[in-house]
């Protein structure tokens, strides 16, 4: 099997896409879970503030999500653009 330059570049892009999205998913998963866990604790303490707490949780999680989305974008770039 002769390996050509273009083939090698494609192979590296595919492995890179897998690594980017795979490792990139770890942080947001843990971080969003932590935020949600704390939100549940807070709602348990003050159920009457549930709406405000849920809203805050979602905003916080959305920010925590951003690096996951960066990973997804990079993975898609590696898959379809380069």
């Amino acid at each position, binding site marked *: 099997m002769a390996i050509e330059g273009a083939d090698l570049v494609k192979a590296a892009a595919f492995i890179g896409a897998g690594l980017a999205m795979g490792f990139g998913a770890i942080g947001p*998963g843990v971080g969003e879970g932590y935020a949600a866990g704390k939100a*549940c604790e807070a709602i348990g303490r003050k*159920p009457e503030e549930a709406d405000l707490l849920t809203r805050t949780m979602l905003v916080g999680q959305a920010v925590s999500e951003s690096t996951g989305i960066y990973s997804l974008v990079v993975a898609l770039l590696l898959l379809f653009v380069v």
Partner: protein
Amino acid sequence: MTLDVPTTVKLASYVGAGFCIGLGAIGAALGEGFTAGLANQSISSDPRKSGDIIKNMLVGQAIAESAGIFALVIAILLIFLESPGTSLVKAAALVGAGLSMGLGAVGSGIGSGYPGGKACLGISMQPTVSGRLTTNMLIGSAVCQTPAIFSMVIALMLMFLDFGKGAVSPTWAALLGAGICMGFGAIGSGIGSGYPGGEACLGIARQPTASGLLTTNMLIGSAVCQTPAIFSMVIALMLMFLDFGKAPPSPTWAALLGAGISTGLAAIGSGMGGGMAAGASCEGVARNPDTIGQTTTTMLVGQAVSQTPSIFGLLVSLILMFKVYPEATTLAAPMALLGAGLCMGAGGIGPGIGNGMTAQGAVTWVARNIEAAGVLTRTMLVGQAVSQSTAIYAMVVSLVLMFVV
């Protein structure tokens, strides 16, 4: 310099032995250190109870040690094994065996340290129930050893079964993948089942009258924690016993290696996450035994959602194993499949842990404030769904790698 087959197999068995006891020593040492640390903390708060506490510490450490001893036995067997292998496939099987047992001992060693340490704390809080605490610790730590035992079974099969009949490639990748899958897959379940064990011990000290309820609750919780390890064992067995000999060597080798990595890595997060929910449930039941029904229900819902990433991992593994591939002449085709396995495997770790943290918060507070159980369960599910999103991204990228590019 050229290596003949028996020399290569011998080399592989030594490398496997190194992985096995090197990795396998990590967990037991950490777990025992945790137990010893909490034992000292307990003795400092009540030095008169040091006899009971030290006895309990030593029993707890002995159980945590067993994961390390399994790894030692497999490493010694690998070194002195008169290998029946006359094929290079055996070399991959022996490295796989070392990885399976070495990685597989990490979680069980760490996990069994929790019940040991928390039981010591419990004895200093409530010396009258020290016998009951040691019993519960033994049950809890024994459950933590289950993933290490799965790993040992897979390692022994890889060492002693004869896989020499099939073609060298892709069979080597299937066997190495089986070892990686079981090894990584055991980590999360081992650590995770330690949390309910520890919290149940502390709970019995706090609420001795609820000790039966607590042991039961601990067993339910830690049984669910074993699911990801069982998924990994299933995939490892499929990789060992399905016949991939007729498939084209490239890209099938990468698909089989990827299949092992996907389920193995994704199981880490789900195992730990399930344990966090179960630990919170034991803690909550001890605080407020009347809420056991609602607490256990919330725990089971939370654990079920925490299992999702490992199910994604399983799905990707099954696709990688059963998809029919045309012969590939490029390097890109196998790398896409290996990348798919890595992506889903690593991508499943974080969401599994995150879902568990969410469930932990919800379960803890259902037990304290049962009137808010409805809103807590709803918030938990919303939070988990968001935390799940990156696992779904990882699955999408894996599917694109497998089916589109």
